[in-house]
């Protein structure tokens, strides 16, 4: 990647040599799957992003478009899957303009694996690449070090074992589109319910030969939060304001300072055990 800068690298290396731990990036402790069927391929993902044990995003997008007919599901470091996918998407588009041909899945695969191999695993992207092109429909998986696999079905991420158990017990040759969609969404659900790193909704993308790829964003939403017991709207004035300032106004009332008189205050002790 041309644009990467290593300017802060030495500073951070120094910091870590002094015993400062490097903060963790949001990783998509994820379930992603892909499955081929008669005449196409489908990929699916859950929508939970985590930072340690905390859910950072309840409805994130893990299905990325590389080209109109080539999509990719990403697990691992969230920023890496997003950025590596965008980069290869650009390069694929330039390549298909240059060659005046439809982009091929194996081209995306090669671009991705060579890029990841170059960075020897430091770019933490684990991908399932799928799509249709003039040579047929394809399904691959790529690991962060650059190795790739081919198969009729693939699973990746922390929920990959839960998802794989669905494929290993129910997959068969010559699935229909509907069967493949059901199998993939069931595999993702196996991850959602049984793997703590995965959760929320199912995203699904169907790529059929000779048709536009269809993204089913939030194909299933089995985890909508139910109504809370209370609503917590506060009385206006519950928060004590010391100073108010209008810093921008279309009515040309810029920078007027209003000092609000403090309302009756409850005397505040340092720490009271109520």
């Amino acid at each position, binding site marked *: 990647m041309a644009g990467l800068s290593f300017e802060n690298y030495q500073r951070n290396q120094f910091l870590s040599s002094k015993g400062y731990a490097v903060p963790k990036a949001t990783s998509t402790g994820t379930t992603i799957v892909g499955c081929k069927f008669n005449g196409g391929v489908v990929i699916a993902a859950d929508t939970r992003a985590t930072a340690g044990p905390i859910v950072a995003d309840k409805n994130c997008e893990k299905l990325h478009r590389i080209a109109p007919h080539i999509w990719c599901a990403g697990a691992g470091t969230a920023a890496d899957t997003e950025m590596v996918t965008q980069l290869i998407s650009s390069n694929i588009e330039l390549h298909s303009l240059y060659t005046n041909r439809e982009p091929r899945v194996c081209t995306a695969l090669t671009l991705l694996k060579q890029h990841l191999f170059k960075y020897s695993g430091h770019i933490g992207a684990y991908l399932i690449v799928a799509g249709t092109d003039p040579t047929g429909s394809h399904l691959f998986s790529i690991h962060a070090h650059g190795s790739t696999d081919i198969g009729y079905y693939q699973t990746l991420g922390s929920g990959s074992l839960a998802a794989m158990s669905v494929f290993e017990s129910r997959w068969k040759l010559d699935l229909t589109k509907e069967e493949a969609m059901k199998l993939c969404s069931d595999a993702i659900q196996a991850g959602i319910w049984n793997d703590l790193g995965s959760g929320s909704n199912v995203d699904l993308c169907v790529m059929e030969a000779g048709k536009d790829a269809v993204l089913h964003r939030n194909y299933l939403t089995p985890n909508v939060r139910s109504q809370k017991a209370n609503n*917590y*709207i506060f009385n*206006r004035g519950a928060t004590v304001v010391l100073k*108010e*300032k209008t810093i921008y106004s279309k009515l040309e009332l810029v920078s007027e300072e209003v000092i609000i008189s403090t309302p009756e205050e409850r005397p505040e002790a340092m720490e009271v055990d109520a």
Partner: protein
Amino acid sequence: MSQDPSSINGGSAVAMIGKDCLAIACDLRLGSQSLGVSNDFEKIFNYGPNVFLALCGLGTDVITLNEVFRYKTNLYKYKEERTIEPETFANLVSSSLYERRFGPYFVSPIVGGINSKTGKPFICSFDLIGCIDFTKDFAVAGTATDQLYGMCESLYEPNLEPEDLFETISQALLNAVDRDALSGWGAVVYLITKDKVVKRLLKTRQD
């Protein structure tokens, strides 16, 4: 004490979306581990009237990144002859952080603003290497992240009027930072509507 660059200086921020409005708030503490150093360290910056950025994390990187983004948004203004929109700015933040993938700035930013074309409020947060977390309710950052998630998840209601949103975000921030040793020492809230931005300084505990 914690040996982590992003929690040496402490500090927290939160943003929430209301009905045609949004609020973004932060505490004012800058410390060195458990020692409080400054009670006047604002972590919210603005680049034009409708784009606000909260930067939590390592103090030196907060200051540096503010200058980087001031520089970049000024150049954008000269080239485009208009101010940057929040969505565009979010992508600028993302790519600026990812550029430093292998030597990151130790920050967790939140972008908030109202799109001047559509009038839609927009917020999102990032991790330290630029992964965007788009959200339609609230975004949190800083050393009181856990506490803020707990507060926001229980207090937040969609479609609040500006003044109700102000109370909700203030209570969320105040009670969260009171349970975090590295945040507090004052707080500010920016209430952003389509044609007015108000900044309020809150009364907080000083311990």
